[in-house]
């Protein structure tokens, strides 16, 4: 009389915890000097631009966040186009993106342009999702909605944009990314760093220091930028190829 419940036996089995097959490998930069240089200039550019805009950001968050979206998009697009292998491009042997599956080989520039556009669209689409996540973490819902949405747009351009550019819309890969199990490289590392930084950015908000910069969402966005740059550098150098393990 085997005492087995067919419904839930499987849930008890600890073996089901094992990670997805580790077939993916970290992203490499495009193999040319320009890519290497731009990749180093990119964080400096981001941080100095952020530093310059910071006073006006604190004084007037919405217009500043809005007006800096386009420059940020241009910086990210240039960085992606010049440094990163587009999804399905010849830098990778296998075409995995559904997106470029039908594209002809040798059509690289227009394909890249299309990938850029596609990345922008997905970043835009992911903005409300990220805003929802911020709200679930305790961001105000009845007020400050433009603030939250705009800060999410910045988060999306920093993280979702390069990720989509290099990985396309491959479901399996995205599951790996969402489960934080992708091998660390500068794109994934930057994204993780960005979210961790935004998470830590909430820390100074409650303090009663009465500083202007404590207002929503200044600290979050600051944390995100700092975390992005830090994560990108650590990901491209210190922890490259490693994976985040929970257990």
């Amino acid at each position: 009389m085997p005492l087995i419940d067919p419904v839930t036996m499987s849930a008890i089995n600890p073996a089901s915890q094992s990670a997805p097959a580790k077939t993916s490998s970290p992203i490499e930069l495009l193999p040319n000097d320009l890519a290497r240089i731009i990749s180093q200039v990119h964080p400096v550019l981001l941080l100095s631009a952020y530093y310059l805009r910071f006073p006006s950001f604190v004084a007037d968050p919405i217009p500043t966040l809005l007006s800096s979206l386009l420059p940020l998009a241009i910086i990210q697009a240039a960085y992606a186009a010049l440094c990163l292998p587009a999804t399905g491009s010849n830098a990778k042997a296998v075409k995995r993106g559904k997106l470029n599956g039908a594209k002809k080989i040798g059509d690289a520039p227009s394909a890249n342009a299309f990938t850029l556009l596609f990345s922008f669209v997905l970043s835009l689409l992911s903005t409300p999702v990220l805003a929802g996540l911020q709200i679930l973490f305790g961001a105000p819902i009845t007020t400050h909605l433009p603030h939250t949405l705009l800060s999410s747009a910045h988060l999306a351009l920093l993280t979702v944009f390069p990720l989509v550019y290099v990985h396309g819309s491959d479901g399996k890969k995205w599951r790996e990314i969402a489960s934080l199990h992708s091998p660390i490289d500068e794109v994934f590392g930057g994204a993780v760093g960005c979210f961790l930084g935004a998470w830590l950015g909430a820390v100074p908000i409650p303090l009663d220091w009465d500083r202007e910069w404590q207002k929503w969402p200044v600290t979050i966005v600051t944390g995100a930028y700092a975390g992005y740059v830090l994560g990108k550098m650590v990901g491209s150098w210190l922890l490259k190829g490693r994976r985040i393990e929970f257990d």
Partner: protein
Amino acid sequence: MVQAKVPKAAPGNYNSIAAQYARAKAIKDAEEVAKLAKKAPKEKTPADDLDEWKKGRFVREWWWVAGAFMWFLFIHGSGLYFFTRGFLLTRLVLEEKSSCSEPPIALSSSFKGAGTIEGGCWHPKTFDKAVVVIIDALRYDFTIPSNDTEAFHNALPFLYETAISQPQNAFLLPFIADPPTTTLQRLKGLTTGTLPTFIDAGSNFAGTAIEEDNLLMQMKDVGKRIVHLGDDTWTALFPGYFEANISRAYDSLNVYDLHTLDNGVVEHIMPLLSPERKGEWDVMFAHFLGVDHAGHRYGPNHPAMTTKLQQMDGVLRDLVATLDDNTLLAVMGDHGMDGKGDHGGESDDEIQAALWMYSKRGIFGRTDPAYITPPATAKIRPVNQIDLVPTLALLLGLPIPFNNLGKPIEEAFAGKKGNVWGNLAAIARMTAAGIKRYQAAYYVARGLDESTIEGSPHALWATAEKAVAGNGKDKMWKEGYAAFSAFQEETLRICRELWARFDVPKMMLGVGILAASVVALVLFANWNAEDEAAVDDPELDIAESKLELESFSKGTLTSEDETSAKSFIRGALIGMMLGAASSPTIWIASGGADTFVDFGLAVGSISGIVGVFYQELRRRMEFSNPFPRTLWGWLAVIFTITQSIGFASNSYTIWEDSILLFFISTFGVATATSSLRLEKNSERALGVYHSLCFIALGWIASFSKLCREEQMPYCRSTYYASATSSTSAPWQLLIPFLLAALLPSIIKSYYASSRSYEGFAPVWIGWAFRSGLVLSAVFWTLDAADDGEWLPTLPTGLLKNIRIPIAQTVFAVSIVVGTIAFNYAPPCISVRTSATQAPTAKVTSPNATVTILGFANTHGTRYFLLLTNILLAVLMVQKPMGAGAIALMAWQILSLLEIIDLNSLASSPIGPVILALLGSFHFFKTGHQTTLSSIQWESAFIPLHTIRYPYSPLLVALNSFGAQILAAAAVPLIVLWKQKPKKKGILRSVISALAWHIAYYAVISLATTMWAGHLRRHLMLYRIFCPKFMTAAVVMLVVDVVGIVVALVGVRCNSMAIGEVFGWG
């Protein structure tokens, strides 16, 4: 078969219902046993013997475990006791009031109009009007000349100048505050004349208003019109006392603003002093805060302080210029400030304020000509701040407030020449008699015999009475005055010793014991945590049990300790015995300084802890890496530690609820991420679904808010109908009905996922639990109808008479019937047998397939029945909004259990810690804050008409800490959920989880204790840190008790019941 009748229960009487249930149950049990006995006359097999043996082992083990947790409770209580003894100052508040016509002792000489306010109640009246000016944090050395060039010196010379140049019009004295030197406590002292403490254990915790007899109350009672200008602390302490149109209160907490308040006071005070408007008031209180704020913001040695003091100097000169003959002016600091400009503690700089009194009439005197020069330091001829109370009362002809412990200030009554000893003796005698009357009343209220109090000043009183009994010679009066003053000083000394002293060594001892208990808890939890993943192989299990049976029948099976509880207890006991043996030596060595009970408790706690540590050291030869090994362990540590550190800051303490939501959401995102790594699609989907569910439910609950004052204006209360009411909005009444409709079904869906909605579950969850919820909803509707007078035609009290039995029935169902039902309930399983002719089986023996539905979650689903009982009881005492939050919490717990199971986290500390976070979070969502004023006292009256002990305090505790109680009761589920019968090592895993859970609260409690002790001079101590410390301490003790009484006892019942059916693992 035995025929038995069950008498009908009296409706509404829960005792009767319970008894009926028990009788019916007993009969049913008897029937079943009889049936079983008839069907299968059982023979005892070796396997049964082994089962018996295992059961005995479990029971023994359980007692050791319970002992270990009781020891933790004891140690926590002991640590908190010592800290509290050193930290919290308690005093009973008496309700008696002085009255004009009843002096505490017969007047020694009669005067015209004695006993009336026109002539003076207990002493001839000197002034009709008074202006009392408080310059917050006016330290004594700010007012006297100094040779150095510090910014705070020589900036306010007016007081000193007048005292020297017009000694009959003015005097300046050091004015010593009693710690705690915070404004609120000081104002209590300055108006009641008694020593302020944090807890004035009076009839009403909820308000900050002073209920004791005080100067303002006496003024109001005789019809004096009081004006207040400045610090709004006054309006909190004396609501409704002040003339509404001419009083002006300003926010007192914005220490960055040095001028708004002061300028506002100046702007309003001068017009009121003008001859035209003098008739509008009798007594004026003006409270300036600029000096204090300059100290807090810049420290005393800053140009801003000079400016501020100079401004005050000018203001006082202007005041004096406009004063008339019939008005007394008193200027004082309520406390001083330390070197950094802060205050709250008991250092010299903090307690040394200044007092200056002025009158145009020139009635002040000195008993010694040398006294004309104000003292050079605050150590010389100081007066106590409470001395102001009898002084002002007697000068204005008012009765001295009942609680006064101060004595009249000599300079104000000594006469111009300083030799009116008869007058001095009379006022000293009157004041001393008042003090004596208060002391007698206090000892009666405390139930103490006054004569047993050491150093009782009875003898001094007798001497003083004898001294004034003779004829009225000046020498006699002088002696009498001295003797009555000595009586007052001695009484004050005794009271001060009793009420107002931080005892730092005791506080340190308490913190040390708590810290050691945290270490012991973590070691205990770590040792009992399951290290390796259990192999789940039925064949191996069978082989193993065969082997076990074999060695058992040979008699070689030895009982190994499953948990470390036994050796733990042994360590504690040996340690305590050694401590007890050596205690006489220590007692003598320490000089027997303390009471014997305290000493015994300290030695017992410390030696027990030492014993436990020794045992732990012996057990594990090496110490493994103390840091967590998984990300989950790290998360648990980060959540606990960062929060503990945050409690050192008032901001993080104020916003604790938001921080908890942040952590809870973080955990949900982490588990969603982790669930995405699961191989099976179905499990992955479930894991993500439950994680998102967990986050969303917490977020929805976060809309239930009761804001504390400090959160304004960034918070909007939603718990009640409006910010100024404590009743629910009509739409909130829908919540309990929604719960009755949905909550049982939600629980059912979690049972159904493991096919466990079988056996007793449908009856209890679908029927009894739901009925309880419906009754609770009806109760709250009736309550709202009563509050809102929806049915004005009904006789008063009818609705109350209906709803109270309803609440009693719900408690009867959840606690009495629920406990019995849980104890006897069969597992939530059902056996289906289908006889099938298997093709391979032999024709002669038909193969029967037996399916046990709900087998895989036998432990969890049965234990959860206990949780529904607790849930029902907690839901009953919450207001509709709070009930919604608790229901969301229950749902979150269910999701958490699924998440823990799917991600195999049952042995990680993260599960118990998240449960603790949930408990802490929903504490706020059920309309509470870590302030005394947020306690919902009215919950004591939900099932009762009057206060009844011990039920009323228990009900308030159930209301206040319902969330934490529910969380603690749910801890075993972390281990038991999705656990099949005969699982080995369950108790061990449960106590590890429980220890982790308690460890969270112990760390929080330790941290808040340390911060409260460390920040005992902080401006916000009594508003923020002390209430947080008290909440954390009470929560820890409540969780300790619930851990033993509910969780451990529940696991015992559960394991016994399941072992009975399936055998022991």
